[in-house]
Each structure stands twice: as C-alpha cells, then as structure tokens.
C-alpha cells in the first residue's frame, strides 16, 4: 500500500553517518508500533513518507546495564523486556508496572521505551516514572554526545528536541534506593487503550511511619507533556502522612494540571482523577 525507503545499518557509526547525511529526512525506526501507524496516517512530522533508518540490526543499541547509581537502557529494549527484566523489577518497579499497560502483547513485544519517549505523547505510559526519576537521554551524532534531561527532551505533544543528525542512544535512569513508588492510571478499556489520566509517584521515608523526606509526582495525559506536581511535592515534603494531608494533597494536585476535553475523556474528570489516583497511592502508605 505504501512505499518508502529503509536503511538498515549494522553498526552505530554507519547509522550516525547516514543521519549526518540525511538529517531529519531520515526517520529512526525501532519497534515501528508508532512510526508505521504514522506513515499509514500520513501524519508524520517529517513529511509525507520519509525514509526510515532501521536501528534493529545494531546489536549495540539493545542493552540494559547497571552502574552504581543508575540503570542504563538501550533504545531497542522492548516494553516486554523492560516489564520483565530483573534489574528493572528490582530498581524501578513502577516502570515495569507502567509499560505492562501499553497496547497489547504484540505491541509490547515490538514497541520500545525509546520509541514511546520519542513519540512524546502526554499519555505515554513509560514517561511519568522517568520524569519522577529525572532520567537523562543520551543523544549521539557523528561527532558529539549530549545528555539531555527528560523534561527538556520532550517539548510538547509529539515534539522532542533532537539534533537532526542525532540518534537517541541511551536512557539513563537514576536509582532511588529505598523509595516506594507506584504508577496508577485509568483507561477506557483494559487493553489497546491510551490512558486518560495517569500518576507516577516515587516517595522516600527514612522510617515508614515518619516524615516524607522526598516525594516526586508526575502526571500523564493532563497537560501538553507529562508534568511534575511540584507544589504538591513541596506540600508533602517533611510531613507525616495523615488523612487531612492526603485530602489537601489530592486537592492541590488538581490545580497542577491543565487537562483538555478530547475524544478519550473530559477536563473535569481528568482533573478530579489526578486527585483520586494520588490519594490512592498515599492512602496505601498510611
């Protein structure tokens, strides 16, 4: 039905060279679960039917490893691999939970976390926890390597900042030892469905009934990008969880999003649900 050119380099150097030559004309392809749909819809930002740079033959981009302070993920790691990998399950359990909601088994077997990130949907399930963790994205070009914080990498719905000759080569996710985290989301049906609102949380309390010394909250599908609930984080920091505090936090978080009415849900519901989901997490920690 559609014709397009695919380049399939077998090593990163070759891929970077191609990208340096063709720039934005050449669109990277990992799992293809978003790219091929975009091509089919003729909606792609890069023109009608761009050439594709198939990264799947570059073994080097398919990895996961642990450093003393971080987990590093290569762009070819699929959602299924992430949701089942022992390193993720041990160090970033809410991410394992989040990506298991994506699409269907077939989509999770093909789709990658890097693709989910580059597609930059505010409803992307992989993002809220990466926002909580202040993940960094490594972008390589033929002559440079840059590290970009995730909040700067994603600039709007479907928009990322990336050098036209750059390729996303690594996602660096800081470990948060002894944090308790969760990812809560609501969706229209139980499979093959974008979330209509989601909340990612990472919280640290030195002792389990004492004060919260750190908490990070990220909201999905309620603003043009995933957003952090920084006022609510501030409210909760250095406090002991009580029912009243949870009520207050659940009201405040609703002011930190700017949801819209769209084909999936409506503004007032989304707003109210950020409060409900956050409260559910906090109640589970009392």
């Amino acid at each position, binding site marked *: 039905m559609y014709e397009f050119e695919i380049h399939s380099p077998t090593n990163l150097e070759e891929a970077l060279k191609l990208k340096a030559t063709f720039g934005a004309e050449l669109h990277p392809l990992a799992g293809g679960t978003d790219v091929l749909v975009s091509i089919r819809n003729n909606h792609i930002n890069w023109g009608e039917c761009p050439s594709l740079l198939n990264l799947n033959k570059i073994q080097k981009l398919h990895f996961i490893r642990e450093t003393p302070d971080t987990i590093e993920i290569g762009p070819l790691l699929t959602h299924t691999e992430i949701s089942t990998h022992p390193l993720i399950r041990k160090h970033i359990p809410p991410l394992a939970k989040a990506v298991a909601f994506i699409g269907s088994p077939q989509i999770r077997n093909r789709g990658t976390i890097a693709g989910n990130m580059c597609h930059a949907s505010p409803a992307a399930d992989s993002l809220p926890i990466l926002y909580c963790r202040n993940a960094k994205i490594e972008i390589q070009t033929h002559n440079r390597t840059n590290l970009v914080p995730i909040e700067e990498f994603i600039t709007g719905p479907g928009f990322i900042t990336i050098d036209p000759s750059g390729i996303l080569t690594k996602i660096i996710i800081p470990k948060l030892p002894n944090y308790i985290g969760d990812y809560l989301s609501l969706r*229209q049906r139980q499979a093959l469905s974008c979330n209509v609102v989601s909340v990612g949380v990472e919280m640290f309390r030195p002792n389990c009934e004492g004060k919260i010394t750190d908490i990070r909250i990220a909201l999905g599908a309620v603003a043009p990008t995933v957003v952090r609930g920084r006022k609510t984080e501030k409210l909760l920091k250095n406090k002991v969880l009580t029912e009243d505090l949870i009520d207050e936090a659940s009201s405040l978080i609703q002011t930190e999003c700017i949801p819209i009415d769209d084909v999936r849900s409506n503004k007032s519901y989304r707003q109210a649900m950020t409060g409900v989901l956050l409260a559910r997490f906090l109640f589970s920690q009392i």
Partner: protein
Amino acid sequence: MVIGKPLPRKDARLKVKGEAQYIYDLSFPDEHFLAVVRSPHAHARIKKIKIDNEKAKQLGATIGTAKEIPGKNIVHVILDDWPLLAENVVRHVGEPVAIVVAKNPKNAKKAISAVHVEYEKLPELFDPTEAKDHSSIHIYGDNNIVSYWQQRKGDINKGFEEADIIVEGEYRTPAQEHAYIETQGCIAVPLGHDEITVYGSMQCPFYVQRAVADILGYPWSKVTIIQTTTGGAFGGKEDQPNQLASLVALGAYLTRKPVKYILSREEDIENTSKRHPAIIRMKTGASKDGVLTAVQVEHLMNSGAYATLTPAVLYRGCLHAVGPYRCPNVDVQSYAIATNLVPFGAFRGFGSPQVLFACEEQMDRIAAELNIDPIEFRERNLIKQGDTASFGQIIDNSVGMLETLKQAKKKSDWENKWKPAPDFNYVMEESKRGNYKWSGIGISTIFYGVGLGSAGKQLSRTGSYVQLEPDGSVRFAVGTTEIGQGMITVLSQIVASELGINYSKVNMMPVDTSRVPDSGPTVASRATTFSGRSLQNACQQIRSLMFEIIAPHLESDSCNLQIEGNYIISTSSEKKILVEDAIEIMYQERGQVAKAGWDVAPPTDYDNEKGQGNPYAIYAWCSNIAEVEVDTQTGTVLIKNIWAAHDVGRAINPQTLKGQIEGGTLQGVGYGRYEEIIFTPEGGILSNNLGTYLVPTTKDTPNIQSIIVEDPWKSGPYGAKGIGEQPLMGIAPAITNAIYNAIGVRISEIPATPERVWQAIQDKLQEEPE
C-alpha cells in the same frame, strides 16, 4: 439426527486458514479504482462544480457527477430521498458529490483535487428536538419528520389515575458503529454496454440489484449481484452497499472497466450508517402491588440527513417500546427526525435497543420504588401464553419468556445475590474510607418480533434452489446471506435432515441474484427461519420426485416412503435404500433432480391509525442478568458476569447459537458500557477509527453464560425462530440496573463510561448533600 447437533461451521476452515475470498482478495484484469469527492459541510448549497480537466487527464482520471448518471439519481431504500451524488444541496459531512476513477488508488485520490465544488453554507441542525417542526431549516419535507408510528391501547389518562405510583424518566442513547472486521467494498464489472455484475461485501444483494438497475437505467435481468465472503455486517451492510455498489457501477459505466472501491476504516466510520441516537421520555404507572396500569412513551430518533431505513427502524422501535409486558393502557408516540448528520440505519436490534434501555430502566425504577425484587415485579407483568401484547396481538404460541427468566435467575444465583440497592450516602461515606468497590446485580427481560413484520411484509418471501448431484451430494442456493452468523451451517443441517444426506455432502452456493428470485433482505433475524422454510419446501418437492422413482424399487407405494437417517424406508414393504443409491437411480432413470423452493411468511398487519395490530408473526424472548463491580471514586464499571437466557424455539446448531449469544452480548456490552460515536461541532465524526472508537476487547469480555430455552414455534423450521439480534438488545439496561443495585445511582444515558458514571455520582452528591 443432524438437527440440534453442534456440527462444525461450514465456513470455519476457509476463514481460519485465511483462504476465504473477501472483496479485497478479488481482482479483475485492468481493474480501476474509485475515490469519492465528499462534502466537507453538514449543510450547504452547491453553487458550482468545476472540473480541472487538465489535471484529471494527467492522472488518467474519469470524473462523474450527478449529470453523468444515466438512470435515476436516487438510491432506493424506502422513501426515495437519497441521491447517489448530491446535485443542489449537501445535507451531511461526507455526502458524495462526485466520483473519480483512475488506474490506481493513489491517482484516484489525487484526482479528487481536480473537482472544485463551490458551496454556500446553509444553517445546520444536529439535535432532533430542535429539528422537529423547525420553522425555516428543512432537511426532510417541511417539518423534518421522516417517519411516525404509534401504539395506542385503552385510556392512558385513566391508566395513570389508577396508578399508585408513577415513574418518569428521560433517556438518551448514542450512535453506535458496527465495527465489522471487514470494511465495506465492492467491485463492478461491466459486460458490454448494458450489462453489469457487482461483487461486494453485503447483506442484501437484491436491494443492491434494484439500486444499481435504477442508477444505470438497466433492466434488472441484466444486473447481477454476487456476495463475496462478508466479514461481519450487523446491519451496517444492509442499505449502505446500495450506495457503494451504485458508485462503482457508475464508475464502471463511465469507464467500461472493472471498478473497485474499498473503504479505509476512517472513510467507513465517517460516512456509513450507524445506530440511530435516540431520546426517549417515558412515564410508567403501576399499582402498589406491582401491576402495570399505564405506559406512555415519547420517542425521538435522530434519522440523520436521509431517510434510508429509518421508517422500518422506527416501526420496530415503536413496537418494542413497552417491552414484553401486559399493560391495559398504552400510548407510544414515535418520531424520526432528519438532521444534518450522516444517515443512521440498521444495526442489530433495529431501533429496539434504544427503547428497551428506557423501558427496562423504568421497570427497575418502579420495582425499587415499590420495594419489590425486580424479578418478581417482572413476573407479575410478563406476557404468558394467551396474553395480549401492548399492541393488541394475542401471543398464543412459543412463549418461553418466563422459562428464560426462571433459568437466568437460577443459574445466576440471583436469590442469594440480590439485595436492595444500598443507601447512596452510606456508599459515599464508605467510599471515603477506602471502600470504593461495590458489587451489584441487574436484570432485563426483553422480546423480539422475528422477521420483517408488517412494515416490510411485501419483502417477506424467500426463494431457494436444491440440486442433487450424481455422487449423492447436494448443492443448494438461497437469497439470504452468510454474514458471520452461521447461516450456511444451519441451512446445510436443515437440507441434510430433510433429504437424509450427510451434512458433509451438503454445500451452499455463493449468493448470487441470478440463482434464486428476490428473497428479501438478510435482516430481522430471518435467514435461518425463512430461508429454512423455503429449503424445506424445495426438499419436500425433491422428496416427492425421489419417492416416485424409488417406490417401485422398494415394491411400495410412494406415499408409504419416508426418510430415516440416510435411508428411504418403506413403511409397507419394510424395504429400504440408501439416499445416495436412490439419487444414482434417479440419474439413471433421467428423473428431475432439482427444485426451486418458495416460502411466504405468515401474515402480519398493523394499523397505525389505531396503533394496534399483529405486527410480527412470532416473538423470541430473553432474560439477561449482569453482575458488575463499580468503583465509586473513578466511575469505572467492571462487568464480571452475564447470564443470557434465550428462547429460540429450537437450537438447530447449539454451538453457532452460543456464538451468536456471546457475540451479541458482547456487542451489547459495547453499547451499554463503551461505545459512542463522538461528533465534531461541525457534524463530522471525531472517533473515526478503532483507536478512538473503542469496542470491548477480549480483556473487557465478561464471563458470558449462554442459556438456551426451546419453546418451539409451530411454523418454524424444526421449531426455530431466529437469534441474530436479541443477544445485544437487553444488555445495556441489565448493566445500568446492576450499577444502581451496586451504588444506588441511576444512569439515564448510555454508554455508562467512567466519566458518565462519575458525573452521575457527582450530580447526586449535589442534589442530596450529606
């Protein structure tokens, strides 16, 4: 006995192996492709159509407008108001204005821009309440009323005077998309200058035959329609192929080439018919001991821009509005109103799911007000054999209603599960404490008039053809279609049983309008029943031929012969012969080995002036019980179990029957809980693909228990009455009644999405401060 056995589907192997030929798989040499120039406006005058001939030529495209139509520019359905290509006014977004034909789909699509249509926008109407009797905007006639039906019985005012309790409600139901797995498509192949064959994915080839003949001005005998393997229809391929086949036929007429048109999912959802959205106001009165005294219904259906099937859909809606209950005083006023939305049409249930949602909500509300178990309340009012229905018909035959209720009640363990709905304020307090998941159970009891009924009785006849082959196998043809429901299988079982031939040796020919006479549409759950009756007629004639030739061989009189298993047996001489061997003898003796069958449906009548009559020949009955879990904080409803008990007269094939029950129930779950077409403010469709129009997936499928009740219909083949539509019809109210039973909140608009349930909870919190 081959009847009543769960034999494997005739078409299963081909479909599972991917070998069935759908329209997409079919190609002809030098085939061309069609694209349609569609209106971007909901209501506008066409001031000018300018063709860029240079551009069209470059792309090798042929362009056709209304002017190029050789016959009548009317797609015939019922009221003849639907042009194939708009001439002066467009009345909905997506209305075809011109066709473009080119060598490949790409050029055809590009050539759309060679057609410049100049529009002058007109004021538009989308809301039927506003459109009814509108003083200046006229979409249909001079009051926008497309159709009107009524039911009247007794004295409605007296009925309300006699009532101890009166419940009133207003209900809204959405446009539902059929979401068949195969999108619509057709290929027209011209033969010479005045003959054409159209292949396509469709339900009603004879409708298409007439539509194409009218558009091209050809004699019907030179228009042949062949149904290709059809990947689901659900009503969506009833009238729509009339339009699509006419478009390709026009393309083929203009180019003298085979012309193919297969809709993308978006094109299909945006431009083809859906279930009519409806607004139903209902007032029900009952005595304090739970007996109905009066039912009044004001029923507005949104017809969209053209009448298409609306009058027939409204007829069924009007006649099902009171439900399967006795009620002495009835007043149902049903109107279908034209608006500037895409024309709405047939969809499984055909106008009845809308009114049944309202009716079953009302029944539940009264039962709750009277503090009666909703099943007990229904038992006091349900139609039993010999009772008179709200429209005056005496229901004297095949009334399995109470048996379905009894079985659904028993199998769902209703007795132990049902308790009155909890107090709403209590639910909210508990919910705050973290107990936000609440379980509930709900019921609906419904009925369905099988077949076309009085509104379509002129179409209510079926042809068939049965031919014995020398090897003892048999082939048959009918005019109704296989659309996934299992008709080929069930009809093959009937033929096998009638002739004593093994099921594996009975084969159906593809449906082709040149094989049997116009047999009416494949709708109204009529294929098994009415093609079945026609095949019985053909087989009976063949048996007579066979017995005459075989009688001497069995030293018997032909009137003493009968079929038992695979043998012809003489009751007098006690001799027998294998049917297979008998057929060989028939061939040897040059006997006639083929016969055409014919069937005319039993009589029906309806007097709309009086609002009374005998609208359908026979009724099917059903009870649904749904068990749900409601999250009071998020409004999410999880449907856990559904018990669906159906009186089908006779289950010819219990396996395909269960398939129908499960599939229909799930589509009902979609209607009640998930699915809704979302329109743009300009009258276009926002939810135009399966990523935004969400049907339930496997993971959303509740545990469905199909319960088969058999109260045979004396005129049905082996007692069968049809099952196509009923499984969908009563699911929505069973779900919303279960939601009420869980949390004490009523839902008056479906689908019961989390947003809507949550909003209903918020509204109730507002009206009843703690």
